[in-house]
Every structure is written in C-alpha cells, then in structure tokens.
C-alpha cells in the first residue's frame, strides 16, 4: 500500500475547496494526484500548484493520505471519502467527511461546520472540537447521517445530529443548543452538558447522557430497567475506539420522547 503526503507550498488564507481530493480513493498515480482540480479562492487550480505531494510505500491494509499544516480554510476534506485512511495533523474547515462512504478520517485539531453531514459509512475521529451541524443534513436537505461513526473528544456546537437517521456519535465534551433536534434514529453519547432545546422533535433513536442533565418536560421517565443493550454498546465503543464509556455498575435512567410529537426516542442517563 502507499502513503501520500500532502504539504502546502504557500500559506492558505482563502477558502479552499478540496471536494475532489476523494479521487485519491480510486488508486490514482502520483502524476494523476498532482493534477486533481481544486478550487482556491474560487479559482480552479491543480493540487500541485498549492501543495507538494510525495508518495511512500507502507506496510498497511489500506492506503493512507497525510495532510500537513492545514487550517480552517480547508473545506470539503474527505467529502465522499471511501476506503482509505485520511490523517490530518491540524485544524480543518467545514464539511469534513460529508457524504463519507467508508474508510477513516482522523483529525488532530478541530473542525468547523457540517462535519460528517449525510455520511453513510466509515469513521471520523476529531481530537478537539467540532462546529455546528455535526452528522446532520446539509442545508436544504432532510436526511442527515445514515451510517458510520463519529468520535469527537472535545465540544460540539449547535445542531448536533440534526435529522440524523442512523449511525453513532460520541461527544467527549459538551454539546451546544438544539442538539439532537428532529432526530430520526441513531445512537448519540454526550459525556458532559447539553445546551437549550435539547432533543426537540426527536422521533426515535437513542441519546445517552453521561452527566446529570435536567430533563425537559417533553420527556417522560420510563424506569431504570437493566438493558443488555448498554453492555453491547460499551463493547462496540471499546472495540471501535479503544475506550470505555460506562462503568460496570452505572445506574441507568430511561426517558421517552419527544412526547409533543408522540416520539419514541429514548434518552438514557447513565451516572
């Protein structure tokens, strides 16, 4: 397998649209990669005009792409990404992993809005914070994330998993306002607090809170029965992300809602 290393030649200080970078997934030659068309400040350029690109042979099951010295102007990184591993060692802009199909993206910094929006498979790991609309639908659409998993170790901003359909999201910090609004299905774990209008219009799906958040009146308490599902989820997270989120003797409280729309979503408070 091969490793492509991409490093900017100049300081990127305007909007950079890297939507076509996913062509690398088609196992292109170095020459073809250098000729990938990108938009910088709304002007079409070749990848090699802005970046130095090198190739190495590695012992791995998948191809790797390493992007160095990125910043918040780098939009659409990993858009429709499949198969390969994309490693980003700094911050990135919006639409990271949007419509992603498979493979894995790891970001050592933070990212901006619409991360994992409408993704259908694969995994994204963000070591710091994420912006608005993580795992949501893209503006004007009604179907959010439909598969795959997202792990954010920091905080997320507003509208986390808006209209999300399937998949798994873990937030290691806090979630902003309007989190889990219009959730259709999927599993979301939020380790710390949540903002205003939490889970409004939730139809189905599971939201797990690992902190003592006060429930709103549109959620009805439905006991603290033992759920084997929690063990299963714990195991999945442990295998997928090498971390353990619940203790063996965690207490589970279950709430159902949003009752205002006769939703069957569940909120599990695990403390």
């Amino acid at each position, binding site marked *: 397998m091969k490793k492509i290393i991409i490093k900017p030649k100049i300081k990127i200080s305007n909007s950079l649209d890297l939507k076509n970078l996913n062509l690398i997934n088609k196992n292109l030659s170095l020459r073809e990669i250098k000729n990938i068309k990108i938009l910088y400040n709304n002007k079409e350029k070749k990848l090699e005009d802005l970046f130095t690109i090198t190739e190495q042979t590695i012992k791995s099951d998948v191809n790797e792409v390493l992007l160095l010295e990125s910043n918040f102007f780098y939009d659409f990184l990993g858009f429709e990404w499949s198969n390969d591993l994309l490693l980003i060692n700094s911050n990135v802009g919006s639409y990271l992993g949007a419509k992603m199909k498979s493979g894995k993206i790891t970001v050592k910094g933070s990212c901006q809005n619409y991360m994992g929006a409408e993704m259908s498979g694969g995994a994204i790991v963000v070591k710091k914070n994420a912006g608005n609309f993580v795992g949501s639908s893209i503006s004007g659409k009604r179907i959010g994330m439909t598969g795959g998993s997202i792990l954010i170790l920091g905080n997320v901003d507003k509208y986390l998993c808006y209209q999300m359909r399937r998949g798994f999201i873990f937030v290691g910090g806090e979630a902003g306002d309007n989190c889990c609004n219009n959730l259709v299905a999927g599993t979301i774990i939020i380790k710390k607090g949540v903002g205003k209008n939490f889970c409004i219009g939730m139809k189905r799906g599971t939201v797990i809170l690992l902190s003592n958040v006060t429930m709103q009146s549109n959620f009805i308490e439905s006991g603290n029965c033992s759920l084997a599902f929690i063990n299963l989820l714990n*195991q999945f997270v442990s295998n997928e992300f090498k971390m353990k989120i619940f203790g063996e003797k965690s207490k589970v409280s279950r709430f159902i809602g949003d009752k205002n729309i006769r939703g069957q979503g569940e909120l599990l408070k695990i403390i």
Partner: protein
Amino acid sequence: MKNKIKIIDTFAEAFPMKVSRLIITAHNLKWAKEAANSFCGFATSVIACGCEAGIECELKPSQTPDKRPGVSILVFSMSSKELSKQILNRTGQCIMTTPTTAVFSGNNGDEEISLGNSLRYFGDGFQISKTMGKKRFWRIPVMDGEFICEDYVYQCKGIGGGNFLVLGEDTVSVLKACELAVQEMNKKKNIILPFPGGIVRSGSKVGSKYKNLIASTNFEYCPTLKGLVGSKLNSSVNCVMEIVIDGLKSEDIFQAMKTGIKKIVSSKCRGILAISAGNYGGKLGPYLFKLKDIVK
C-alpha cells in the same frame, strides 16, 4: 482388540447438513442454559424434529458480545429452509421467552438466516434497530426490559450422523461407559451430541416395512431379536447404546469419536465387549469414519 474390548472392523457413515451457531447470553449462566436447553429440547434427530441441536460449550462473559455469561449452541438441519424455520421458531418460543436472555450469531457464513429481522415484529412497532459496526441488532421490548437479537445468523456446511455403538453384557455397564465417553466428548468444540444425555438407545435404519415410515428400529443391534433376525450381536451382548455426533468438519467428528472410544477403552469398564458403528453400506453419506483408523 483394545483392553479386551473388540473394535469391529467397520465404519460410521455421516452425511452433509446445514449448520448454524447461536450464542445465547443471560443475566447468569443458569438462565442462559435454561434457554439453551429449551431451544435444544425435541431436537434429537432430523427424522421427526426438523433439526438436531445441542449445547456446544459454555461461554465466559469475556467471550460473549454483551459481556454476560452465555452458551454456544449448534443447530443442524438437512435443508436451508428447514434450518431457518427451526431457528426462528425455537428462538421466538424458547429464547425470547426466557428471562434476561439475548441471542447473537456465533459464526459467519455465506447464507443469512433471518432472525431479529423476523422476530422484531413481536415488538409491535416499538422495536428499536441498532447498527453497531457491520452488525445490526434488534431491541424488542419485553416485560423484563428488552430482548436483544441479532438481525441475521449465518448458515454454513456441517456434517451429521457420526456415531459409534457400545456393545456390552448389560445395561448398567454400557450406560456407565457411554456416560464416561459423553463427559469427555462434551469438552470438545465444534461438535454436539444431539440425543438426551448424548446417548441414544433406539438406533435406526433407513425405511420400514410400513410404507409411510422413513426410519425404523435397527433390528440387527436389538438384543431381544437375536435368533429371530440376522443379528450382529453374539450371545454375550445384551445391551447396545449409540453415541451420535454432529460436527462442523469431518476432523471434528473424527476427534470426538476418538476421544469417546479412547475413554471407554482406557477406563476398562466392566462388561463392555465391543465398539461398533452404524452405517448404511456407504450409500447414505460421503463421510466414512473407519473405527480402525480412529483407534490407531
């Protein structure tokens, strides 16, 4: 002759089957075993039960998907259709009904058998689907919480009908020898002994004088018919019992037979005269287990 026990120069004949492995977990091992025993009840022979099933092994919490104690069961049947039907019905009536249980696929295979995907309708619209990685699970609300069931289990190729016969002077000695063999064979993975306690006393032959009956008593080994029919038993033999083995591969059955026979031979059980095996002249199945090779 081994330890004064004659090993008859014959072979066991086995045939291809379809098999699936299920993992049943529960709050504790007792309830996992209750569910497994219920599932495997009335699953001794495909002649009239639709499938042959048994507990393969007990599983520690660290070996199960939801980290609870569990058991692994193997289910064998002659056709994919029958296997699907049996697994679905038995899971619905025996596992789902048992307190605290959950059921998962224990193997991979080419052919899917719909399990949670069909059982979910019991949830009457309140069921919840959860996809974790590449697997999908159904959470069906039940009165003790919820029943978790994997979307599909998988069918793979297996072998049924491995066997050997223990011939002895009386019931007590043959039963004791068989019990020792079963105890040892049950430690093996990838096999089950589908009959009650692993032992069968009503060995059968194919067909009958009654036209609608597909199997009937194996008269050659019935001690009470000595002198009446062409018996394979000499005058000293007054009891015969059979141990039937279903396994995933022929090597698994071979090793299980070896373990069982070796145990009987080495334990020098009083009253055991010979070890034989049931076959149909090589016409029924492609897998032949020669006793001479097994005891080598």
